[in-house]
């Protein structure tokens, strides 16, 4: 019941945003449509809202909101930094690369946290994910210019602090 109520409130808020103005007829039509949408979506998406509805304390949820803002800020900062570097490569006269494929092992357990970490790796400068092995939890990463061969320095350069932040959100 709690899940259905949360889905209903979220879709009603989205409806009111899309409508642009609040009226009585808009509100009545919105409740009818969102009740149908919430009942249909509960049949398919049982797994999505499982993460949101774990019983947390109040203080823990505020800490989680702080880390969510940190992760979104890291997304936008990394996107701009890497775009500047790649566009510097674009306008060179003779662009020189040394591409290589490396493997990196993670310590995360949940599937959604692995997905968000892979989105972060796709935005950090010069890296791209090709594949993921779910048994050993290894990422196959294609990297433009490889500087060091050591595993610890390589892991620190890629997922040093983002892994801790994501681990504090989901685990």
């Amino acid at each position, binding site marked *: 019941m709690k899940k259905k109520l949360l889905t209903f409130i979220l879709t009603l808020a989205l409806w009111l*945003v*899309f409508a*642009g103005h609040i009226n009585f007829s808009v509100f009545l039509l919105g409740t009818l449509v969102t009740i149908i949408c919430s009942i249909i979506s509960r049949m398919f998406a049982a797994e999505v809202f499982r993460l949101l509805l774990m019983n947390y304390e109040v203080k823990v949820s505020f800490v989680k909101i702080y880390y969510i803002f940190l992760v*979104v800020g890291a*997304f*936008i900062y990394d*996107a*701009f930094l*890497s*775009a500047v570097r*790649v*566009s510097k*490569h*674009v*306008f060179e006269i003779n*662009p020189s*690369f*040394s*591409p*290589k*494929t*490396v*493997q990196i*092992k993670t310590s995360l357990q949940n599937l959604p946290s692995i*997905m968000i970490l*892979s*989105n972060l790796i*796709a*935005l950090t*400068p*010069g890296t*791209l*994910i*090709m*594949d993921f092995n779910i048994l*050993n939890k290894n990422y196959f990463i*294609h990297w*433009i210019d490889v500087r060091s*061969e050591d*595993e610890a320095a390589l892991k620190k350069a890629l997922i040093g602090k983002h892994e801790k932040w994501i681990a504090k959100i989901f685990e």
Partner: protein
Amino acid sequence: MINSISILREIIAYVFLITGTYFLISNAIGMIRFPDFYLRLHASSKCLIAGSISVLMGCIVLEGISYISLKLIIIIIFLLITNPVAIHAIAHFAYNYSIKPQKIVKNDIKQ
């Protein structure tokens, strides 16, 4: 007083818009000049996301606080979630399609 604030807002908005257009043009040139498929995908992921976010943030600064800017923020969050997923899906498709990188050297890590 009010006039100077509106002029300052327009200057900031146009700086964002011109930066976004520069990133989109660099994406288009990088798609042509790079020799390998995965290098092209690098240019197509980073510059595309940064350019689109910059253009949308310029529109938000130009608009102010209203329902329209809320819709633009929804578009930004949607692009931030779905665009790296699409790039990852294309890279996995190419890896299954037997397109190898130029110099593939496996780094054997002792775990």
